[in-house]
């Protein structure tokens, strides 16, 4: 692949190891050569390094396949998933699941990433509906969305939400950015 295809979550093969781009910054000094400054995580060992590529360079995409699975439960640092087709269960450590564990609801359907048949990560739906289990009281009538407060959802993660959101309500969250999208009325 061309370096211009780099983006967050791109999967690269470097020296026989699969890496995922966790942070991505494009810089380009006035009419100069663009630099793609990346923080990449080894999908097997979890180690993180920084790498910079220049415009025009070529990279090798990692051959990572994804399988539809359901998240079952977490016990301590171990996250258990089940293959929807074969009912086979696999386990991943919290490090391998990464920051996405903030959105891992029980029974959530997701894509588990396999590199040479080894689970190396999980890819979530772009949006999940979560319940607010704790937050400051709602402010009546304030529908402005540019002032926010923290709200704890059932996975323990904190999401910034508008002031009118109340405890017990359901909200749609963008798993790619962690941003509140809308209130869900059921």
């Amino acid at each position, binding site marked *: 692949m061309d370096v211009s295809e780099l983006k967050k979550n791109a999967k690269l093969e470097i020296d026989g190891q699969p890496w995922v781009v966790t942070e991505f910054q*494009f810089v380009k*000094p006035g*009419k100069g*050569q*663009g630099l793609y400054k990346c923080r990449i995580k080894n999908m097997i060992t979890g180690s993180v390094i920084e790498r910079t590529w220049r*415009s025009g360079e070529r990279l090798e995409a990692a051959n990572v396949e994804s399988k539809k699975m359901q998240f079952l439960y977490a016990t301590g640092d171990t996250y258990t998933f089940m293959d929807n087709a074969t009912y086979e269960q696999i386990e991943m450590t919290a490090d391998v699941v990464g920051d996405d564990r903030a959105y891992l609801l029980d029974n959530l359907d997701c894509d588990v990433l396999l590199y040479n048949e080894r689970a190396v990560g999980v890819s979530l739906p772009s949006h999940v509906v979560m319940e607010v289990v704790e937050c400051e009281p709602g402010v009546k009538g304030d529908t402005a969305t*540019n002032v926010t407060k923290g709200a704890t959802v059932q996975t323990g993660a904190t999401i910034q939400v*508008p002031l009118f959101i109340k405890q017990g309500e359901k909200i749609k969250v963008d798993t790619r950015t962690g941003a509140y999208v809308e209130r869900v009325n059921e």
Partner: protein
Amino acid sequence: MRTPGATDGVATVCAWWDAAFAAVRDVLRGQGLSEVSTPVRLDAIAIEPWIEPVRADAGLLATSPELPMKRLLCRGAPSIFQIAHCFRAAERGALHREEFHLVEWYRHGEDLGPVRADVERMHAAVTAAVREGEVAPLPWRTEAWLDLLRQTTGLDLRGDETAPQLHEAVAAVRPAWARPLPWQDDATGPDQVAVSRLDAWTALFSAWSDDVLDPWLAEQGRVGLHVVDFPAPLCALAQTGSDARGRAIAHRFESYVVDGGRVLELANGYRELRDADEQARRFATVAGLRAVHGLPPLPVPEAFLADLRGYGLPACAGAAMGLDRLLLLATGSHDLAALDVHLGAPR
């Protein structure tokens, strides 16, 4: 100051853009410039080393409105400006979008001083239009490119070094920067000397900007900085000459703004090159550099060159300023995503 982010409403973002468009038009019309609109789909664009066009069905989407606006000037247009949609392939990040807005303007019979003053005026006007409450005026400074390089790295250059000379000078001070620099001229002809020279200076500018200049700027406090008198090989479409110390320079500047921990390159201006033969040679040099790096060939802007030859470009100075970045600064945002009114994934 507001704290914009992903949760800002579309109404707020629309109001920011409206204020920015109005402020830019107020400033430039107030200076006697007329607004124009030139085609977005073009047969050819200014050939640049590292700017890639987005290809349209038949033609290329404008990477800047420079050539069509200069053709208007050749054919008798007064001092003009444009707020143009521009496209640059594969430029994606917090400060880059493949589609963005350039304010581009040209002043007849003037040099770069008034053009830099326009940058300052527009920065002040857009900031005042979108920020709540009083904002202290931004102090502006001017530094020469070669002086700033010497001050921040110890490299004292004349501005006309060939690739091997530049490689030797850089290697003595910053060995890591010398590695991507071509260290010898390709021996196939005099054109290759120019290609290697442009390649070497461009690589030096990239390395210096990223490693030294941006971090140095970040420490300068809240300031606007015009970096003027670029080294001659980085002339792009500007006239060249020499400075008071006899160094080879281009009459080109870039304006940076340092504010709230952000360093943004905001504008780029030229005393415009009028010599059609020199312009054609420069396009050929850049095309040579693109070939060295395996970048796809671009069509020669023949219609533009024909107008330069046939009608002649009147003496003028002009600049391009990133309006999205100016609005980013004015609203106190850190990512262009805060300004998106595209409904759908921003590109």
